[in-house]
Structures are given as structure tokens and as C-alpha cells.
């Protein structure tokens, strides 16, 4: 029993879903995603019992490439996030009916497969393959099942694809270059190679391009809002909930250990860039009239803070980044699901056409409210833990940066509450709004439960990830 089982489960799941036919696709997909989650839990358990969950398979002799999957605290927590969120996302989409559902769900599972692979692979080349692979499904999901005017959608989706593809190709070049230096792609070997600062700089840059586009960090973010808006909610959830976490995870797993010198030298530049993203995103969110775009920009802001934390190269920063990744993953999925529900009921994304929903839906309102509060990092929600550690790490580098980054708790509250007021409150809306069904409620309750529980008792996660992060830190400071 090793980590490869998770991948296999998901891959089989994707195939099975496709062949299950449109009628059963969603159910089968749900089944397999839950199975994958279960398998992940088992693996985590094994790891906690100190067993070896890694799996290595020889693949290509020349250049020397082997499919080596490594499960440590860092990667497995991300896998846990991925599988759980995938299950939740599939659960969330059960109600809607897609044309050609079998492909849709198969693609979702396949994407989960690719992303899990990205988190697990310790071989740079395999990692890159999974990284690219995860791009194809989301491309088709956004393209085929997306909403909005077709031409505009095409334009945005292709822009997104080329943009991210471009970024990652440079990462590939960097990997090959490293391979020429070391004769191996494995993370272990790559972090041990001695590079001149100049080489490190260029490699860092290549990686940065790939990640900055994926995360996204300003000014590489222009694809984001449009794609989030156009993609179907499931796609948006996958993108914002998991996919952009891939990039931040990669920063911690690959970029920083591989090229620590520039990371140290340009630390402040990077952090300021990210923090600028926080403020920029927040202020833009204030101006959005489109619900999904608003959430997209808020996500831009939060993720900027996470990246900033990761670049502080402190334990708190890394830990905060990981914690916040998880927290943000759940919150953003929840928020987009809420948005999805509203949009499905009113079939518009214009905030101006909403409002006065609270009267009709006490349950939905409370759930939405809690999610909003979580996303503004109210204490005792999981997000607070993450955001606190992040800001604390920023404060360790420079108190003023911390103040700047801290404005997120003000601006965040500003635009989120504004949105909540415009969407939910006010005199009763003319259009009727049915309160959440049991299924929808279940999704929300799950997410909220997770957020609140770990908000008060994050110890299990912290203890799980800290050793891995300490290793990373040692590699960075080697």
C-alpha cells in the first residue's frame, strides 16, 4: 500500500466514469473520489505509523527518469486536500445536469489524478508531466461546459491555456538544464547540486514564471478573473480550490530548495510583489459587479498573501502558507458553490440583480455568512490560523510589510461584507429563491464543519506538516 494507489484509484475512476454512461457518471465519479479520499486517509495513517509510503518505478533509461512518488507530510496534506475537495466538488455538482456528463466527470477525476500526481512526484520530469496534464482537462471543462458568450469564452480560455503553457515550458527548460548538471531529475539529487548564483537566478526565474502565472501573482493574473467567470462552477472550484495550490506547493517543494540564493536575495522584492497583489486584488474586488469575478479577485488577494508567506522562508511562513492553502481551498470552494446556487436560482451573475435573498432563505444565508466570515479570517475559523501565521511571518521580515499585508483583513471585510449586503440583504427580492436542499446543505455543512473544527483544533494538521516543512527549510538554508 503506497501513494501510487491513490493515483491508480483516480485513473481507474476516470475510465470507469466515462464508461458508466451519462446516467450514472456522477454517481460513479463520486464513488471513486470518495474511495480516493479513503485511500489517501489510509496512506496518511500509514505514514503516521512511520511506514514508507513512497513508490519508485524505473521508466526511461536515457535520460534517466523514474516515476518516483514520495508521500511526506507536505505532499500528502495537499493530496488530502485534493481528494476531499474533488469529492465535495462532485457532490456539489450532482444536482445540475450536464450534457455529455460522462466526459465531464471523467475529466474532473482525470484532473484530480493529474494534480495528485503533481503533488506526489519527486522526479522533476514526471512532476512536469503531471503539471501539464492537469491543464488539459480544465481547458476542456472551461471550454465546453463554460458559460457566457461563446466567442469571448473561447478567447479567454485559449489565453489562459497558452499563458500557463508558456510559463511551464520555461520550467521544463530549467529542469532539463538541471538535469544536464546532475544527470538526474529526482528532487533529492537536484537540491544537492551546486549552482552559481547566476544559474540559480535564471532557474528561479523560469520556475517563477510558471508559478506566478498559475498562482497568479500580479502582473501575471489577467487570465484569472475571466476564466473564473466563464468556467462552470465545478471548473472554477477546481481552479481556485486546488490548481493554484499546485503552484504554491511547487514553490515550497521545488523552487525554494532548488534555487535558494535568489529567493534570499530578492526576498523583499518577491514579498512586496505578492503583497501588492493582496492590495491590488482587494481593491479591484471592490469594483466588481460580477459575483464570480469578485470572488476571483478576492482569491487573487488571498493567494497573494499565501505566496508572500511562502517567500518569507520562515517556518511560520511555510506553515502558514500550507494551512492557508487548505483553509482557502475549502472556503473558496464553498463561496463559489454559494455563488453557483444563487446563479443557478437567478441565472445571472450580476450582483446588481440580486439582493433581498435573506428573507427567503434563512439557512442558506447563515451558511453563506459563515463562509464569508471565514474568508475574512474571523478568529476560530481555520483561515484565521493560516492568515495569522502568514502575517506573523511577514512581520518577522518587516513589520511594515506585515501592516500592508494586514490591510487584507480590513479590505477583505470591506468587499466581502459589501458583497454579502448587496447579494443577500435588503427588501425581499421579487424573484423567488428556494432555500437550500438537503444535498446543498450537506456540502455547506461539511465545509463549514471542517473550517470550524480545524479553526479550533489545527494541531493534527500542524503536527503532520511541520516536520516536512522543517526539512524544506533546512534545504533552503543549506
Amino acid at each position: 500500500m503506497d501513494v501510487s494507489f491513490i493515483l491508480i484509484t483516480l485513473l481507474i475512476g476516470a475510465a470507469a466514469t466515462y464508461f458508466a454512461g451519462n446516467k450514472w457518471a456522477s454517481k460513479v465519479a463520486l464513488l471513486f473520489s470518495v474511495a480516493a479520499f479513503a485511500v489517501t486517509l489510509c496512506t496518511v495513517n500509514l505514514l503516521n505509523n512511520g511506514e514508507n509510503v513512497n513508490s519508485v518505478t524505473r521508466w526511461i533509461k536515457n535520460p534517466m527518469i523514474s516515476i518516483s512518488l514520495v508521500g511526506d507530510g507536505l505532499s500528502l496534506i495537499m493530496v488530502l486536500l485534493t481528494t476531499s475537495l474533488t469529492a465535495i466538488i462532485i457532490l456539489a455538482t450532482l444536482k445540475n445536469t450536464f450534457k455529455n456528463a460522462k466526459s465531464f466527470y471523467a475529466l474532473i477525476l482525470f484532473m484530480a489524478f493529474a494534480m495528485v500526481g503533481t503533488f506526489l512526484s519527486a522526479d522533476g520530469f514526471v512532476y512536469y508531466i503531471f503539471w501539464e496534464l492537469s491543464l488539459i482537462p480544465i481547458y476542456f471543462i472551461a471550454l465546453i461546459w463554460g458559460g457566457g458568450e461563446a466567442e469571448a469564452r473561447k478567447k479567454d480560455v485559449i489565453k489562459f491555456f497558452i499563458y500557463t503553457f508558456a510559463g511551464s515550458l520555461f520550467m521544463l527548460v530549467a529542469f532539463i538544464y538541471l538535469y544536464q548538471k546532475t544527470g538526474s531529475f529526482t528532487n533529492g539529487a537536484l537540491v544537492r547540486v551546486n549552482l552559481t548564483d547566476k544559474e540559480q537566478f535564471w532557474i528561479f526565474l523560469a520556475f517563477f514564471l510558471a508559478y506566478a502565472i498559475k498562482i497568479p501573482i500580479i502582473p501575471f493574473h489577467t487570465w484569472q478573473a475571466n476564466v473564473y467567470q466563464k468556467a462552470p462552477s465545478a471548473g472554477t472550484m477546481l481552479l481556485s480550490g486546488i490548481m493554484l495550490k499546485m503552484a504554491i506547493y511547487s514553490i515550497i517543494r521545488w523552487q525554494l530548495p532548488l534555487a535558494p540564493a535568489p529567493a534570499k536575495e530578492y526576498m523583499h522584492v518577491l514579498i512586496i510583489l505578492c503583497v501588492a497583489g493582496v492590495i491590488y486584488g482587494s481593491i479591484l474586488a471592490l469594483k466588481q459587479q460580477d459575483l464570480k469575478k469578485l470572488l476571483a479577485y478576492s482569491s487573487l488577494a488571498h493567494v497573494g498573501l499565501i505566496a508572500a508567506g511562502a517567500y518569507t522562508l520562515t517556518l511560520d511562513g511555510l506553515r502558514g502558507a500550507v494551512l492557508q492553502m487548505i483553509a482557502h481551498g475549502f472556503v473558496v470552494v464553498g463561496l463559489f458553490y454559494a455563488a453557483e446556487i444563487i446563479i443557478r436560482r437567478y441565472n445571472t451573475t450580476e450582483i446588481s440583480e440580486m439582493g433581498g435573498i435573506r428573507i427567503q432563505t434563512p439557512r442558506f444565508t447563515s451558511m453563506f455568512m459563515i463562509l464569508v466570515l471565514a474568508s475574512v479570517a474571523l478568529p476560530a475559523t481555520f483561515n484565521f490560523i493560516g492568515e495569522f501565521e502568514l502575517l506573523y511571518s511577514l512581520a518577522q521580515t518587516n513589520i511594515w510589510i506585515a501592516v500592508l499585508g494586514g490591510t487584507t483583513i480590513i479590505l477583505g471585510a470591506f468587499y466581502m461584507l459589501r458583497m454579502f449586503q448587496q447579494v443577500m440583504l435588503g427588501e425581499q427580492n421579487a424573484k423567488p429563491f428556494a432555500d437550500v436542499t438537503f444535498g446543498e446543505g450537506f456540502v455547506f455543512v461539511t465545509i463549514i464543519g471542517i473550517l470550524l473544527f480545524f479553526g479550533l483544533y489545527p494541531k493534527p494538521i500542524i503536527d503532520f506538516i511541520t516536520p516536512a516543512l522543517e526539512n524544506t527549510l533546512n534545504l533552503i538554508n543549506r
Partner: protein
Amino acid sequence: METNLALLLLLAPFIGFLINVFAGKKLSGNLPGILGTVAVATSFAVTLSFFLQVSSSKEPVMIDLFEWMQLRNFKVNIAFQLDQLSLLWLMFVTGIGTLIHMYSISYMHDDENVHKFFAYLNLFVFFMITLVMGSNLLIMFIGWEGVGLCSYLLIGFWYKNHDYNDAAKKAFIMNRIGDLGFLIGIFILGFIFNSLDYTVIRTAIESGKLLQPSWGISIAALCLFIGACGKSAQIPLYTWLPDAMAGPTPVSALIHAATMVTAGIFMITRLNFLFDLAPEVQNIIAIVGAVTSLIAASIGLIQNDIKKVLAYSTVSQLGLMFLALGLGAYQIAVFHVITHAFFKACLFLGSGSVIHAMHGEQDMRYMGGLRKVMKVTFITFLISTLAISGLPPFSGFFSKDEILMTAFHDNKPLWVIGSVASIMTAFYMFRLLYLTFYKDFRGTEEQKKHLHESPGLITFPLIVLAILALVGGAISLPGNSWLNEYLAPVIAKQSEHHHMGTTEYMLMGVAIIGAFIGIGLAYAKYIKQSSVPGQDSEITGFAKVLYNKFYVDEIYTALIVKPIYALGSFFKNAIEVAISGFIFGLGKLANVLGTEGKTLQNGSIGFYLFAFVLGICSIIVYIFLAK
């Protein structure tokens, strides 16, 4: 055992909240209210037992539950600390809380969402208890933001009205500004002390071996004070409090008068040992407090909305408390917090009772003569008014007088400001009293018909609070103060308490005279001339400035909100467009080149062959002749 009791104290309101949230809709009639009241009453009972225990044993009760957060150099636990200070606070939080819950049962009984109301109220009490009980700054921060949340929920309780929602939003965001300061303060303390536990920090300080230069501590103290400003509505973050009156009156009484707004004072008192190390910050606190009290009082002079007046008076009183804090007289600040809690809660509830009778009318210009119909309300209101105006033997007299005394000893200008503020207080409070209860009724006939004394559930709390407002001063009489004894363990530096000499008595006299001046002016204007404030349009000159609260809100909008939006549109319309334009530009460039390539491919063999030969020649030239 203690742990369980403490948890009961903490969780009772929370359970009430849960029940009301999930089952509240099904509970009929007053059941939600009764439930909420019982929940808080339970906490009160438990608090009482702890109070007695601690005040006898002098030993704080420490409860450590489990590890919460890990940071580079320390851990933060979920842990609670029941010492003299927190228990004192809990006493009046839960005590007054119970009364106000009771009051609300009747006050809110015909609201459609009454169960929600009590749910929120219970939640608030829960968070307030957390804030007070926490044994480290982060727990306090949980409560700190939690109460902010509840105040948001309760201000916007009537969510159909967007003005109320705006008020709620404003309150939350302004608090958040303070909270950022609080967070930064926490960070700095974290660096300096590698812990956030009060006890650890205190021992670290008192052991006197501080590695960090004290300016670090000063900055931390300043940041924490900013946090306090947000919560306790001090300049420059006070403007949310008057707007917060949008909430139901019991809320104003509980949250925006008695308990939540005093959180700032609690925090500073908690960390008094820290602030003692930063005299410059203490100065700032004192000045801010004094100025706030003056400004707020002056605005209060001519407001016509009965609750607005009380709101500004609250701000002004809080200012006085900060003045005391700034002067290092923590016990006195606490003393005033308590007395103020009594009489201000009473005043708010009284005004609530009036509004209840007036069917929602809040403008004093349409009241008057109510004392005939609403005896109980009137009397309790009168007592509280006297208390706040600082007339002996009412509680307010003692607390306020001690503050002014300290001010006189340490810093004369501040004493002057404080005194002026209290004269104003006396004036506008009696203005309020006269306009509301004296002369003839100025409302519509319709209202006049329905005028009535409020039911027992409303008047009972009034009476209790009035009594407290009357005798509350007893806990810290000049000379021999029970309170100072009681608080001694938690206050690091004992403020030299001055024996009662001639100066002191002289000062008392001055204060009393001042109060009488204020009252006299009010009497002259509103009873003798029986003048009634004119319509908004008639107000002119400085009065207009006062009436519009010095245009502070407008200034803030112009200076902060507007620019942010402008920046937003700039980002949206300029930068976003520019960036994506650049990206698309690359694509366009490729397309243009592609078109060029197409034109080159012109289909004529002649040209193709020509290009072919050209290629050959250039290659040969390059290879053989270019050497």
C-alpha cells in the same frame, strides 16, 4: 471541577445560541427569550461563585485546555484565566447581560426574528466571556473579533433597511482597522516575549530582564491602543458608535454602552504592566481620551435623536476612562467602567422604554411630558441622569470625580478638558431629560393615545439598574476603596492614592458646581424658556457644525473611501486593460507576422525559384566568402 464550571460559565450562552439558532423558530412566544435569559443567568451564577471564591482566596483560577497554534518560537493554547479583573468584568457582563435579556423578552416580543435576536445576543455574551476569560492575547482576540461580529449582526438586525446594514458594515470595518493594530501589537509582543500569555509577559517584565529595547514595547503598546480605539470608539475611530444606534435599543444598551465598548479599557488594564513601560504611549492615551470626551460631549449638546445623544455621551464617558488609563489610574478607569455600565445601561433601557411607548419615535422634538404617563421610567431615568452628571451621592460622581482628581494631580490641562466635558455632559443629559419628560407632549395625537408605561419585564431591569446606579459608588469610596484592594493583584504599579486633603474636597466642590452649572443652563433653556430645538434647516453657525458631528464622516469619506474607489476604477480601467492589452498585443504581433508570411507565399514558381537561388547564394556567400 473548576474546569467544568468554567466551561459551563463559558458555554452556557453558546448553548443558548445553538438552541435558538437551530430550534428557535419552533419555540413559541417568549420561549427563545426566556431560554436566552436563563443561559446568561447561569453564567452569572457561576461567575458569582467564582467571584466569591477568588475574592476570598486571592488565587486566580487557571484553566488550560489544549494546544491551539504553533509559531516559530512559541505555542498558543486555548486557556483561560479567572482572576480578579476578569471576574469583575464577568460579573457585570453577565449580570447586566441577564437584565437586558430579560428586558428584551418584552421589548422584542413582536419581532418576527426574535429567536435570532436572542441567538445573537447569547453569542455576544459568549464571545464577551471569551474575551474576558482568555489567558492570552489570542484568545482575547477571538472574543475581540467575535463581539465585533455580533455587534455587526445586531446593528444590522433589521436587515431590510440598507442604512442599518451600512451602519453595521461601518462598525465592523472600523473595528477591523483597530484589530489590525491589535494584531501588529500581538506580533511585536510575540517577538519580544516569545509568548502571548499575560502571566508570562508580566513575569518577564517584572523580572526586569528584557532583551529588547523598550521602544519595541512602546510600539506594541501603541498598536494595542489603536485596537482599543477601534473597539472603544475613541478618536479617530469613534464614528461607528453613533451609527450603531441603528440596532435595537437593548443591543445599544448591552453592547454599545455597558460591555463591548469597554473591551478596550479591559485590554489596557489587563496589560497595565506593559503600558507602564511606555509612558509616552500613556500620554497619547490620556490626550486622546480627554479630547474624545470633549468632542463627543460637544456633539452631544445638540443632537435630537434620543439614542444619538446617549451614544455620544457614551463616547465621551469612554474618553474619560481612557483619560484615567492614560494617567495610569487603572482601578479608577475600571471603577468608572462599572458605574458607567450601570447608569448608561439604565439610560439606554429607559430610552428604549420611551421609544417603545412612542412606537419607534426617537426624535426628542416630538416627545415631552412623558413623566406623567411613565413614572417608573422617568424616575429611573432621572437617577441615572443625576449619576452621569456626577452629583453625589450617585455612583457616577465618585468615579468621574476620581478621574478628574487624578487628572488634576498629573496634568492640569487634561483636568480642564475633562471638567468642561463633564459640564457639557450635565447639560445635554438634562436637556435630554427635560425634552423627553417635561412640558407637554409634542407628538401626534395618535401617539398620544397609545402612550403607556412599559410592562414589568421592562421596568424591572430599569429599577435594578437605577438602584445600582445609585449605590454603585460604594465599591470605591474615596479614601477607603474596596475596589483598589480587590484589584491590587492584577495591577502592577499601584497608583499612589492621594489622601483626602483640602485640595481634594475643593476639587469635588468644583466638580459639583460644574455639574450644577450644566444643569442650570439646561433648566434655563428648556424649562424656563421652554424652547424646543428647531428643524435641521434652521440650525446655523457652529451649531450646524456640531449638529453634523464636525463633518467627520464626510471627511473620512472624502479622504479614504472615495480615494479607494477611485483607485479601484483606475486599476480596473487602466492597469488591468494595459496588462491584458500587452498580452493580447503579443498575440496580435504574431498574427501580423503570419499575414506577412501569407503574402510572401504568392504562388508564383518564379518567385519561389528566385528565393531558392537567393538562399543558395546567401549560404554559399556566408560559408565561403564571408571568411
